[in-house]
């Protein structure tokens, strides 16, 4: 318990340091990298959030895109204010995910996996064929207002860090316990009066709305978005972060996202080797270190530290 609090304090310090860095560092490239790390951490953590109920949700990538496009449309076409356009992202992503979840979460396992995959690809196809959304070339011109321009990186990091802490709190609450119970054996929560389907949809909507917000932030960070940014591959990378870091604890995907995002900065110029690298690391992690980095750490500490969260 004490150690967990220690870890939490450390995380808060890291988040504050990142916000400070975003505020005061003069180097836009490194600030950009920090935002990427946090964005990828949110992608991985939301993917893992739906894993709490046992479902592998490729549509994480789709809702990231839906958030980004929502903010882009609100900002460039409808001329909404900065914060309103950001807020629209989780709202729209939440509504669509509620509808999608209501239909699809009655299935599970392979069916849900495949449908979330198909959904992601179809949504991307929809962007490419919609002229109003810029078709294949996507949308440009999402800029924070001049007055906020210098503070935008700090705002972005703050929002993304808040998402991470929020999802951590949700997992630690009774709701998180119920989600894990559903994954473990959904007949038990059902037999004691819990609405399992409703709770699954809730879990899915929380994850989708938050990743939608991260998508909105991404739209302003990049100022340019295109359908190709939101393929199922986004979810695959998020899964790699979860796998490398370990899914036993929320720190896992964050650690995994940090390491791979930083490593990725060096790999961009490697062409086909980049894919080979990611492929090898995913396979290696799965077969050799099934618990990820967090799992290794937990085993190292005789299983007591993370024992409750270990699977």
């Amino acid at each position, binding site marked *: 318990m004490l150690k967990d609090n220690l870890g939490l304090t450390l995380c808060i310090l890291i988040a504050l340091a990142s916000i400070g860095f975003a505020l005061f560092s003069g180097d836009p490239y490194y600030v950009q990298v920090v935002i990427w790390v946090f964005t990828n951490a949110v992608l991985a953590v939301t993917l893992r959030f739906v894993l709490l109920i046992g479902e592998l949700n490729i549509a994480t990538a789709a809702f990231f895109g839906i958030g980004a496009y929502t903010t882009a449309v609100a900002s460039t076409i409808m001329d909404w204010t900065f914060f309103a356009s950001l807020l629209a992202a989780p709202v729209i992503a939440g509504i669509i995910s509620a509808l999608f979840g209501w239909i699809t979460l009655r299935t599970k396992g392979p069916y849900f996996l495949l449908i979330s995959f198909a959904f992601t690809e179809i949504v991307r196809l929809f962007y490419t064929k919609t002229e109003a959304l810029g078709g294949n070339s996507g949308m440009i011109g999402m800029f924070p207002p001049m007055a906020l321009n210098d503070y935008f990186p700090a705002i972005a990091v703050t929002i993304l860090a808040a998402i991470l802490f929020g999802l951590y709190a949700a997992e630690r609450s009774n709701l998180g316990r*119920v989600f*894990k119970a559903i994954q473990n054996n959904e007949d*038990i929560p059902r*037999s*004691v009066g819990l609405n399992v389907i409703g709770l699954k949809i809730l879990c899915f909507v929380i994850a989708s709305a938050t990743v939608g917000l991260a998508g909105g932030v991404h739209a302003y960070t990049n100022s340019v978005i295109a359908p190709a940014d939101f393929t199922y591959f986004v979810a695959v990378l998020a899964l790699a972060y979860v796998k490398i870091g370990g899914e036993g604890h929320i720190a896992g995907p964050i650690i995994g996202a940090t390491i791979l995002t930083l490593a990725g900065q060096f790999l961009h110029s490697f062409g086909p080797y980049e894919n080979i690298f990611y492929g090898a690391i995913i396979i290696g992690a799965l077969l050799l270190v099934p618990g990820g980095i967090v799992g290794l750490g937990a085993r190292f500490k005789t299983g007591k530290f993370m024992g409750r969260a270990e699977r």
Partner: protein
Amino acid sequence: MEALSNKNKGKVLLRAEGLERKFGGLTAVADFSFELREGEILGLIGPNGAGKSTTFNLISGFMPPTSGSLSFLDQNITSKNATHISRMGLIRTFQHESLLSEMSVADNIIIATTHRLKSQAARLEKMQETAKLTGLEDHLEVMAGSLPHGLQRMLSIAIALAAEPKVLCLDEPLTGLQGAEVGAALDLFEMIRSELGITILLVEHNMRAVMRICDRILVLNHGRLLAAGTPEEVSQNQLVIEAYLGHKK
């Protein structure tokens, strides 16, 4: 003997009429009618494959009946789902995979309090109380899947109790228990009935235990009601004896 007089006075909590369930061409339960009265312990016995587990799935809403009707607390629950029925106070346990094996004992019980109790303090209090009742208070932080078998059985009962049932449906709760554990479990059932005022429907293989604790017994064979009555009546029923002997071969 007090129980016997109670049973005649008790009002009907659960009523099944002409219950039937088919799987493809196979009929698991057919034309099964019975009543469960307030305050009694009703036994449901029968050879393997007699339709006991299917009956449990039907009354708890985990499976819809093919035909027939069910009412609980004077409400028609025939087409209601498991969540609805358990919220009304009919709680069942499971014969297999009866707990959350990858969660702690405490978490297992807290999950069961979640719907009824909204404050975390009340949930913890209820959890402590239920754990004490079922002899689990020293194992709260243990992973449920690594509990010894006897305590796993107790935990599945604790989960059901923590959900504050009016009717408790126990699916073979004694399977795999050792001598002394059986006696303790039966004492617990008796206590649940007399002190907590919970009505019990018990599916069980252990015939001596059923005979000892039940007020009335229903015997299922090939999905149909073969006999019903007090333990004495049932144990002397020729059809019942044949059905059991026939299966022992």
